[in-house]
């Protein structure tokens, strides 16, 4: 069965989804979902080990050799990200049942889990496939399920947010479709590896340039790269808390993966960065994203909004790393993708706990929680510190690598900017800490109890991951470096 791991990675959650519909009983479905997700997690671990040892794995679907058939292609990069995603999804699911009980009506819970599985499937599908059009198909699976998941939020604004996301997302997807179409037209193939070999001949044509631009714009819409981020904050804020925790940690990562994959492996550095001035553009967008989004975050009254905007800012950091187009830069980006998943997962899950107890995430309602929900708040503090980039947290590691990469490039000014950016984080994180710890609880509100174990366990799992990988960076760094190296190997 080991041979089939690549496909199982995707098929397991996919098949699990309809099965849930047969099981019906929410509690049962939850357990089943959890099982499927953790199975996917295990598979991703095995895959990563295999890839680290033996190098890229190729799997021919339907027994048709590529480029005629669809190929699954696992290399260090996507194995790494698949690991992140399936891992986070599993941890988040631990808390799902408790949180959903409160936030979603009984008869819709089963549907919720199905959609959750489907979006997981979609993301994993995007990651593992080696076929450009297949990417589009699975992109749509994940998006459609995402829209409906977000629309399940209690507040009516969830509907509107979801609709905006649907429009934006579909435009993005169509752009991607156009991009793929143009590539296909010029090369006659859809297989990524094959594309990579055949593109250089036609790289000079205006058509390919257009293809690249369209594809990238589409991806950036999904990535919520500033200034294409409008849909993100509301979507994250009004979605059910669990969904937010899941997406905040994963969905942007997938988009980022597509960006890397197509820029480095398929179009190749020489094209992306010499024919087109992409790096400069990305650099500007990244930096402005960091500053503007962080500044906006400071003025939000809903903590979910705060962290949503901070996510946009964090994407900025990744893009800065990306735009360096050096090995170090890419490593920093990948590392930050991993670390950011840990931070945001922990933070939003903690918020989910707050919603569970307090029923709101408005900053005003955080008064006095420091004493009433000590463990949850402590988690938020650690996550916040990680966001700021304080030593002994993963945030520090990302910052370190990013700045080192920047300085290596000789751009001292940029290094300064990146560090200044994290000062903004200090402000918006500290607003929360202050309200939680140094304000008396709201008069008239009956004292809030600490969140139930169902939350505390996964939250603290993620928090301790934040600290652990902040201290013992061997694993994450090694993989990220290897992945980056392999990408440059492909590119040259």
């Amino acid at each position, binding site marked *: 069965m080991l041979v089939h791991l690549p496909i199982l990675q995707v098929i397991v959650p996919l098949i699990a989804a309809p099965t849930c519909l047969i099981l019906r009983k929410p509690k049962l479905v939850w357990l089943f979902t959890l099982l499927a997700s953790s199975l996917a997690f295990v598979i991703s671990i095995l895959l990563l080990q295999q890839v680290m040892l033996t190098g890229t794995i190729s799997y021919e679907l339907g027994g048709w050799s590529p480029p005629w058939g669809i190929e699954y292609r696992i290399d260090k990069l996507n194995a790494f990200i698949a690991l992140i995603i399936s891992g986070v999804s599993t941890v988040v699911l631990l808390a799902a049942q408790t949180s959903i009980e409160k936030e979603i009506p009984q008869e819709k819970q089963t549907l919720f889990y199905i959609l959750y599985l489907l979006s997981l499937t979609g993301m994993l599908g995007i990651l593992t496939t080696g076929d450009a059009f297949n990417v589009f198909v699975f992109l749509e699976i994940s998006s459609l399920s995402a829209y409906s998941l977000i629309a399940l939020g209690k507040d009516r604004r969830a509907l509107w947010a979801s609709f905006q996301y649907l429009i934006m997302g579909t435009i993005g997807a169509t752009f991607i479709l156009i991009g793929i179409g143009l590539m296909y037209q010029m090369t006659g193939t859809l297989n990524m590896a094959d594309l990579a070999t055949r593109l250089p001949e036609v790289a000079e044509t205006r058509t390919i340039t257009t293809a690249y631009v369209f594809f990238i714009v589409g991806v950036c819409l999904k990535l919520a790269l500033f200034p294409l981020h409008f849909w993100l904050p509301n979507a994250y804020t009004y979605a059910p808390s669990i969904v937010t925790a899941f997406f905040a940690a994963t969905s942007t990562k997938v988009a980022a993966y597509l960006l890397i994959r197509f820029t480095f492996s398929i179009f190749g550095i020489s094209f992306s960065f010499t024919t087109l001035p992409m790096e400069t553009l990305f650099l500007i967008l990244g930096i402005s994203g960091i500053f503007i989004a962080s500044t906006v975050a400071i003025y939000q009254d809903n903590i979910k909004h705060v962290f949503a905007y901070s996510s946009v800012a964090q994407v900025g950091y990744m893009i800065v790393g990306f735009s360096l187009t050096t090995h170090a830069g890419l490593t920093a980006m990948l590392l930050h993708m991993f670390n950011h998943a840990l931070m945001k997962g922990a933070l939003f899950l903690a918020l989910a706990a707050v919603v569970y107890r307090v029923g709101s995430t408005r900053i005003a309602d955080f008064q006095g929680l420091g004493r009433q929900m000590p463990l949850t708040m402590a988690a938020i503090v650690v996550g916040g510190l990680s966001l*700021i980039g304080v030593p002994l947290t993963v945030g520090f590691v990302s910052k370190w690598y990013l700045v080192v990469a920047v300085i*290596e490039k000789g751009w001292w000014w940029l290094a300064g900017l990146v*560090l200044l950016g994290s000062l903004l984080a200090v402000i918006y994180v500290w607003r929360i800490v202050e309200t939680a710890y140094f304000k008396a609880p709201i008069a008239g509100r009956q004292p809030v109890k600490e969140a139930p174990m169902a939350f505390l366990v996964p939250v603290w799992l993620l928090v301790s991951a934040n600290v652990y990988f902040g201290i013992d960076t061997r694993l994450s760094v090694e993989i990220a470096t290897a992945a980056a190296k392999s990408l440059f190997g492909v590119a040259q």
Partner: protein
Amino acid sequence: MNLSLETLLQLCILLPIFSTIGIVALRRHQNLREAVSIFTSLFVFYSVVSIYLGLQTGETISVHWLQILPGLSVSFTVEPLGMIFALIASFLWLVTITYAIGYMRGHNEDNQTRFYCCFAIAIGAVMGVAFADNLLTLFIFYEVLTLSTYPLVTHAGTEAAKKGGRTYLGILLGTSIAFFLFAILGTWMIAGTLDFTQGGVFPVDVDTTLLGVILVLFIFGIGKAAIMPFHRWLPAAMVAPTPVSALLHAVAVVKAGVFTVMKVSVLIFGIDLLSILPTTQPLLYLAGATVLLASFIAMRQDNLKARLAYSTIGQLGYITIGALLASPIGVIGGSMHIAMHAFGKITLFFCAGAILVAAHKSKVSQLDGLGRRMPITMAAFFIASLGIIGIPPAGGTWSKWYLLMGSMDTEQWTILVILLISSLLNIAYLLPIPIRAFLYKESPANSALGVKEAPLACLIAIGITTLATMALFIYPAPLYELASSILQTTSIAHGQ
């Protein structure tokens, strides 16, 4: 107990941090909780002393924990400068904690458990800073220190306290991330190592302007050294309870700052390189300016603690000058002043606290004639002031003396003048207080409420520190040897 020195070294750092568990666990029983704190402090002091003795016998003590980033690890080693800092800190912490217990109970403050926890973590962090073997380790504990002292500053939880806390955290965390970390990264990229090395780490052929910039980043980035314009946090932190101020000013925070400055200038740049950097001179003047300005402002403060705060800023300037003079004697003077000022200033704060507890006075103008009612306190205050000013019979004399020597043999006449002037200023803003207390006539209002001498716990603490100040005048030898050995000791083997 016959633990190896390495173990003791690690325990200095870990024990306080783990003691928090005990403190939280015992939050219901005051006495036990305090007992834990006391025991911890005793043990830390014990181990530091035994490490000191070990160092005397010429042992090299270093511990290597784990590698955070390739080529960068958390590791510790003992060298004279750190030794000085550790000795002062652990000793004074012991005193402070006893004082604090008396004070906190006297005021029966709430959130005491949180208070003692943060106190413990803070001292652990200080030990980490003192024994850090490389900049990364130092930086980590530097930040831990900032974060753990923040709740102490905002302890009262009032609007004012929160505002103070915001300034405190904002400046310290801000500067450390924006400048200090930046400087560290720069050093890493240029020198390829962050280990403290005798004579500095930078290769000879590096462009000095670049290094100059990095030096500036360091000096500004180490906000704890309170070089203007980044000194605002210190007065802002005055909202904290007195023991905390004592901790901030004498034991932990500011000393960690100047200590870091010392370390950076001696063991990262190395005084030879330092003396030729283009930015050293301007920074020197900046420090000088800080000294003068701070003294002037101090004179115009009526609030006792605020006055002491600004005086601290001034004194820190001295130490920075000592470091930047880039001459052996300067370094000796500076590092001796770390100790001298510590004892002097902590005494002053204890006195201020005692006055607050016993007489509920916080303004200089209210102290007329208080000396008759609180003789011991005021006497101590007088001696400590002498220490800060640098007149016998207090230890401050020596450190100031070496600083003057240092500025002479580097022909920094301006600095020399500044130092002299500012000593006069010190007299001008410190001595009036005891004078008012002893010679002025007591206002009827004061005599109305029969003020008594401060509670015993406080008096003991005050007594100890005062005696220490004088002792340092009479036996400066051991301190001097440590200080002078800073430059001779060959660097300890790194990163094994």
